[in-house]
């Protein structure tokens, strides 16, 4: 009995030793993981949206998992693989609820003969625990192009927690469990990068840059791969249908504002106010006929902070936005009246 214990202890000690030896250098792990990373170049370069991001190969034929962002909305989406080869890619599927997207290299022929090194989402390591070491691979700041390997950082999983991001340009719509990291992994262009354990086994996808506007602090989070695996599998088979996000659905009883806009006749009818219902929140805020609504900001009654400012491009966008807001939401509009810009605020009432 004691002898068995003794050998067990020796075994544990040896296993720890082997792990320690591997831990002493991450060079081999970095080289191996980097072969599965791609540099993605697309649309952007304005308003804080980078024209580049990171992705992970998840099939031998050039399927790439990344974070959904406006960067992918490009007719000229390009990826650079580890070996420096450059390819055109196309957006296959995106899931706003999970904040992930699948893109695919257009010309898959070469990879039938020479399969690409990739992450197999069907064979993931056991989930990590708080305190575990991680490595982060991403093309933050677009440091790498062509055959240059992406940047590697090291950190610790500081927390594993349900995640609630915020709306806006840099919104993180992901709603599941997230890993919160102690290293600054979520830099510009890092989204879609890979978090691995110290052995280089894939754990999670690096999320977006995310700032709490109340505390001015940045959150470095990553989305566990098991949560994204079924999306990826369906998207690769072409079977994926996006989930409609709860908060974007029109509410059965949206809040009442009392603004009547001009008839929506063309594709992008400018959101001019036709009339204002007497005694309505909009009337109290001082809206007048012929005001042109430019921007909109909302703070839902249950929300801690305001949502990011939205540009109101048409009657339709205004209606959609307002139909998703419940009574009690504080709304701030910027309107143009003649040559003046005015900020008008009101609170949505329950519908009558």
């Amino acid at each position, binding site marked *: 009995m004691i002898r068995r214990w003794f050998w067990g202890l020796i075994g544990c000690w040896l296993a720890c030793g082997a792990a320690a030896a591997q831990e002493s250098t*991450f060079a081999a792990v970095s080289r191996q993981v980097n072969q599965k990373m791609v540099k993605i170049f697309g649309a952007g370069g304005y308003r804080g949206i980078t024209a580049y991001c990171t992705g992970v190969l998840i099939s031998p034929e050039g399927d790439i998992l990344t974070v959904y962002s406006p960067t992918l909305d490009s007719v000229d989406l390009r990826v650079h693989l580890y070996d420096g080869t450059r390819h055109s890619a196309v957006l296959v599927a995106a899931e706003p609820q999970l904040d992930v997207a699948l893109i695919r290299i257009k010309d898959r022929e070469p990879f039938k003969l020479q399969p690409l090194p990739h992450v197999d989402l069907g064979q993931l390591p056991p989930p990590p625990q708080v305190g575990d070491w991680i490595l982060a691979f991403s093309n933050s*700041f677009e440091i790498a192009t062509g055959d240059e390997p992406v940047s590697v950082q*090291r950190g610790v999983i500081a927390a594993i927690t349900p995640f609630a991001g915020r709306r806006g340009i840099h919104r993180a719509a992901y709603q599941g469990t997230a890993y919160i990291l102690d290293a600054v992994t979520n830099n510009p262009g890092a989204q879609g990068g890979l978090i691995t354990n110290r052995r280089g086994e894939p754990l999670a996808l690096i999320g977006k840059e995310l700032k709490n506007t109340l505390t001015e602090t940045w959150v470095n989070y990553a989305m566990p791969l098991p949560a994204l695996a079924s999306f990826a599998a369906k998207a690769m088979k072409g079977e994926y249908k996006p989930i409609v996000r709860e908060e974007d659905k029109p509410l059965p009883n949206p809040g009442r504002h009392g603004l009547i806009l001009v008839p929506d006749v063309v594709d992008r009818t400018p959101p001019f106010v036709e009339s204002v219902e007497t005694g309505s929140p909009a009337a109290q805020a001082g809206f007048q006929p012929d005001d042109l609504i430019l921007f909109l900001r909302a703070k839902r009654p249950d929300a801690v902070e305001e949502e990011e400012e939205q540009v109101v491009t048409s009657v339709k966008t205004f209606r959609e936005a307002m139909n998703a807001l419940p009574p009690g939401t504080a709304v701030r509009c910027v309107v143009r009246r003649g040559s003046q810009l005015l900020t008008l605020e009101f609170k949505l009432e329950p519908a009558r």
Partner: protein
Amino acid sequence: MMPRRFPLFNLYQSPFLPPALRRAVLAGLAFSLLWMLSLAPAWLTGQDVDPRIREAEAQRLAAIERVRPAVVAIFARGGGGGGSGVIIDPEGYALTNFHVVQPCGNFMHCGLPNGELYEAVLVGLDPVGDVALIKLMPHQPGAPFPFAPLGDSDQVKVGDWSIAMGNPFLLATDFTPTVTFGIVSGTHRYQYPAGTILEYTDCIQTEASINPGNSGGPLFNLDGQIIGINGRGSFEKRGRVNVGVGYAISINQIKNFMGHLRGGMIVDHATLGAVVKTDEEGKLSVQQILGTVDAYRRGLRDGDELISFAGRPLSSVNQYKNILGIFPKGWRLPLVFRHYDEEKKTTQRVETLVRLAGVHRRDQLEGPGRPPPGRPQPAPRPGQPPSPQPPGPQPQPQPGQPLPAVEPPKDHPIRQWFAAKPGFANFYFNQFERDRVWTGFLKQLGGPMPAGPWKLEGEIVRPIKGPASFQLQSALIEAKWAEAEHRLEPLKPGESLENLSTPTGSGGLLAALYHWQRLLSLGEKGFEAEFHYGGTEPFYPQGAAGSALLCDVLLTEHAGVKCKWYFQPQDQILLGVEVWLEESVDPCEIVFGDYRLKDDRRVPHRWEIRHGDREFGVIVVQSLTWPKS
């Protein structure tokens, strides 16, 4: 009796235990407490952790302890800013960033972790590479400084550990450096100039925290060797605080510039003089080449494909910039390219040596028009990758402008270490290095040679066989090369380039002999326009096919002709010379060999003469005579 307020330990009063048992339990508790206490230190020192982890930790601590004394906290005199640095030899030479010393002027104060403050003087500058060499002055003359050894940054791999040390936010008023630790995130990184002439090429990216004030400090490997000089970071929208992306100038790049820096020079970076682009297949080709550069004379033309440079294969524009960016202007390096001949419709692979041109004008390097680094950089243009910024010297919290640097008083002893001269960071050190080389050269030569006439007779062994003889008089050189006779009056006004470069095809062998005689007999007095130390440069005794030897260089100019003299670094033997009759025309090159003692003078007995891509000839000297002094 135990007080009641410790109910957990109030066993003594427990009604459930008989007194004897109570005593036994207490004794047991006391014993286990003692036992735990005896174990506690073992647990605290972590003997349950793998001994190899302990060992690695101990090694790391030892490395930090070993090199920490060499880390410098740099302050502008007058307190108007500062940064970090590291001492690299016992004499007190220390590396830092250009943007750290720039606000300091020519003199600065340096604090070492021993708590003492030292005077320091600027030695050399590499403004493009953001490197500066300074020298600390010991309190006792000749007292050695602690220093850190230089490593080999080409051996650094992504994932390796790195240790940064320095003085972030100028925290350390007692000059002890802050140590930050992280893995190497990238190697051979190219970072675009950030609104200035500063360009980080082939640099090391580290996640070890680099913040304002860390600039100029060392990045170490786990052996405590310097692998880089920290100086830049990517910050973007989070203010000037580290976000896990810092950059260090690779130490191997700095090694290439070290000779120039020690020589008090303001050294420029290099260009081929060609614009290159990558095509879809990743081939790197020349888009546009200047007609005046050496690469053009070596046959490089628009459309040619670049294969390798300085022994490294080329596959991307970034890589090309990386490789080019680590060399000083004027260096000669191997280039391999593929040239397509339009007329013959053939492709030819060319392996050659190319002299690199400078990137900047002198006024750009030292002029006031240069935007001061260390200030907030202009935002990158849309679509451009965000330029990383130097964390900068940490300015003191002063409203408005940082304090102006205070010059030391006129009679301050530090001033004897400084000499101003346009084009030099500190001409004192140029004279110092020049004198070192010159003294060594005279020692191995056996003393200055008497003035002419000299008579040199020998035999041509290549490409033809035949006699060669030269008569060197002060302003007249006469020669016989095989059957032909040549004559040169080097100082004759209005002499054409064609006459000066006689014999035809040599690029000016007679002129070269004239300058060689002047160097050996007159020394500095023979070169009215220039007689400087030129740093270190590679020299190729066997030409393009052979290996390079890093040599000390003296630059001379007399009568409008510039010469570059190459000296073997350990003993200052003169290995060769390039004689430039005109800047845009290939020089006459001579490789001196087979040094033998003749009448107390050690002189070369084998001369290999080259010009352009060809060898002009090789002569074996049979006799060299000069008037007895």
